């Protein structure tokens, strides 16, 4: 696909690409707190503020809990809001993540994915965002800095859609993406500004039956974040689920619309298949690992092996239909989890994929590979080993060990 507008190449790491996207999206309020490996994002944004390159109130809070809180209330007041964090900060925000989605505050947050303590570790894995998968946030995982840039821009348009009104996390693997320099193509500022547009508000029934915009407005007072008890709480939650389901369509639409101007697409915006049309076996993964897997798939294809890959770009809402369709012809699937669910049945992505496949007409073999915790590198040869395992499973027609660990001292 060709871009319809002239784009500029900038040498940016993932964090810088995210900050650049937030700047172009004309955010009103950024409330944030520094934490590795996200810090470059808030540093960069502070520079934009200091140099007058943005019209943004930057609230440098005393904790991530307050950062998320300020984002929620700023968003409720009508501001486009952005923040960024990583593992310990995200964990500290945990309580407020549910409040953000429950208050229907369309906050956009970049998470430079990082391992959770203890032992303390600043490097990349998905433990942090996986622990928040049920917090009511849309979750998009980027494969590279380019996609991190593109996804942040799309995230505002998805989150603020009056039919969605849900907060969005864009995950980028700590250090692998956050700190690695790439040639990132950026669209002109005016094009982005037009694409994202100004924030729209849904109309709701307010005090005394009056129809008002859903925000804190002295002329049309609303009570936001009330106490809802046994008689109403459940309905609030069900509405969030409906919005999540609607988001499947909106994420695709926004992705396609953006592809029209940028010339870049990531599958359909939900799932990104690679050589799956005739693949017998496939690896499913999230984030930057997909790049390594693609290299291995290329090599295997050159050797005549029918290998493929499915990258889950949008993990929440989970695009079940897209996943089932993409895996229709695949006979053996290896799900890669960069996170553990202690005492559970494999990692979180494995849970969900195997669960979704239960309804598939033809059940492929599905096995789990836990990898890369605490930033441990995963090499092409290790990925190749996984495909070899899948080949063995297909030959033997049975799975011996459904949950394995990659590159781990046992």
């Amino acid at each position, binding site marked *: 696909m060709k871009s319809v507008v002239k784009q500029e190449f900038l040498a940016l790491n993932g964090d810088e690409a995210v900050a650049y996207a937030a700047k172009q999206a004309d955010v*009103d*309020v950024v*409330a944030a707190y520094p934490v590795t490996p996200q810090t470059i994002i808030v540093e960069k944004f502070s520079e934009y503020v200091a140099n007058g390159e943005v*019209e*943004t*109130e930057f*609230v*440098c*809070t*005393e*904790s991530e*809990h*307050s*950062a998320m*809180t*300020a*984002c*929620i*209330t*700023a*968003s*409720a*007041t*009508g*501001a486009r*809001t952005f923040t960024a964090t990583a593992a310990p900060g995200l964990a500290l925000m945990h*309580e*407020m993540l549910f*409040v953000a989605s429950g*208050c229907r505050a369309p906050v956009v947050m970049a998470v430079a994915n990082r391992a959770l303590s203890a032992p303390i570790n600043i490097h990349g894995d998905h433990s942090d965002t996986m622990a928040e998968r049920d917090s009511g946030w849309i979750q998009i995982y980027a494969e590279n800095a380019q996609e991190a840039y593109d996804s942040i821009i799309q995230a505002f348009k998805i989150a603020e859609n009056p039919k969605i009104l849900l907060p969005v996390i864009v995950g980028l693997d700590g250090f692998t993406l956050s700190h690695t320099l790439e040639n990132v193509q950026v669209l002109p500022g005016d094009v982005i500004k037009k694409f994202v547009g*100004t924030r729209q508000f849904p109309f709701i029934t307010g*005090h005394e039956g009056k129809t008002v915009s859903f925000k*804190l*407005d*002295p*002329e*049309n*007072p*609303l*009570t*936001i*974040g*009330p*106490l*809802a*008890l046994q008689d*109403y709480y459940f309905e609030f939650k069900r509405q969030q689920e409906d919005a999540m389901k609607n988001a499947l369509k909106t994420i695709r639409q926004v992705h396609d619309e953006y592809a029209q101007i940028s010339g870049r697409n990531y599958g359909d915006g939900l799932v990104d298949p690679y050589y799956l049309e005739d693949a017998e076996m496939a690896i499913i993964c999230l984030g930057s690992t997909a790049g390594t897997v693609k290299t291995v798939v290329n090599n295997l294809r050159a050797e005549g092996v029918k290998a493929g890959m499915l990258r889950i770009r949008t993990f929440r809402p989970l695009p079940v239909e897209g996943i089932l369709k993409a895996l229709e012809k695949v006979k053996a699937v290896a799900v890669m989890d960069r996170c553990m669910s202690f005492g559970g049945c494999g990692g979180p992505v494995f849970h969900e994929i195997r669960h979704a496949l239960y309804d598939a007409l033809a059940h492929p073999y599905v096995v789990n590979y836990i990898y890369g915790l605490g930033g441990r590198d995963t090499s092409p040869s290790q990925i190749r080993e996984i495909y070899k395992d899948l080949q063995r499973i297909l030959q033997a027609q049975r799975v011996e060990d459904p949950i394995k660990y990659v590159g781990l001292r046992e």
Partner: protein
Amino acid sequence: MFSEWRFTAKDIAQKPDLFTSGHRACAGCAPATVLRLVMKAVRGPTIVTNATGCMEVVSTIYPYTSWAIPWIHTAFENAGANASGIEAAIKVLQKKGRIKDGQIDVIAFAGDGGTYDIGIQALSGAVERGHDFLYVLYDNEAYMNTGIQRSGGTPLGAATTTSPAGTVIPGKLQYKKPIADIMVAHEMPYVATASPHYWRDLITKARKGIEVNGPAFLHVFAPCPRGWRSDPSKSIELSRLAVETCIFPLWEAINGEYQLSAPSKVMALSPQKKKPVKEYLQVQGRFRHLFTPKFEKMLEEIQRLTDERWDRLLKRCGLTQPAKTA
């Protein structure tokens, strides 16, 4: 720094309630009175935020609300951060012309648990950043919403469900944290204490807190009959006794300069008018155990502490009596 806003009881009575009746507060709830009085002080468009607590719970049971102004609650420990986000949004949206120009005030309400304990970090951060808002602490001296657990604001000797008066321990063993002094130490422009018995003083201080540029902190004494085991008809009387015994003196610190407010000045100028703390303590069930032989020493300690803090305050206000010669 402040306007010459003056009001009469009639003005206040005629001003529409922004915190309206119909809420589910208990009989004799002073916090509800405090909220109503503070809301009488607003000067124009105002956005209110509430920490989790009694006042949030009683005033917004969906689908009802007692708030005739825009209001938001997010959680317990973050009233300061709530206000920060609202204030930042107003500033930038006005700069960008997305909302109408003109003053929009921000008021945050929180109880003692949400201020002394779990919320002090967010409050301290918001004040350090200099956001323009009024923070109102309604202090009923324990976690009343969850059933009377002790907080950093619970006074010495008070029985709560987590500092019960047992056979060996006479209620809370620790002192009440001097929260308003801690806020003065932030070098913020306006800090004051108030009591609903002195409603004119309270409303005036709330108005000053709203008018001042930058953060303001108003610490309001707010009896809770359920938690204090006191007669619901005596809440306002207790609000007076706390001032007359100098357990809760009324003062202002404008740019760090302490000055005693009129109701407390009475005791400063005529020390014989200062009542013994016993008069205040004996009408509350939470201090009942102190009036038994076993624990009566605690009464002396409470009197000693009250006098010590009162003397320190007088010094800060430049009202010390000349030192007696030996």
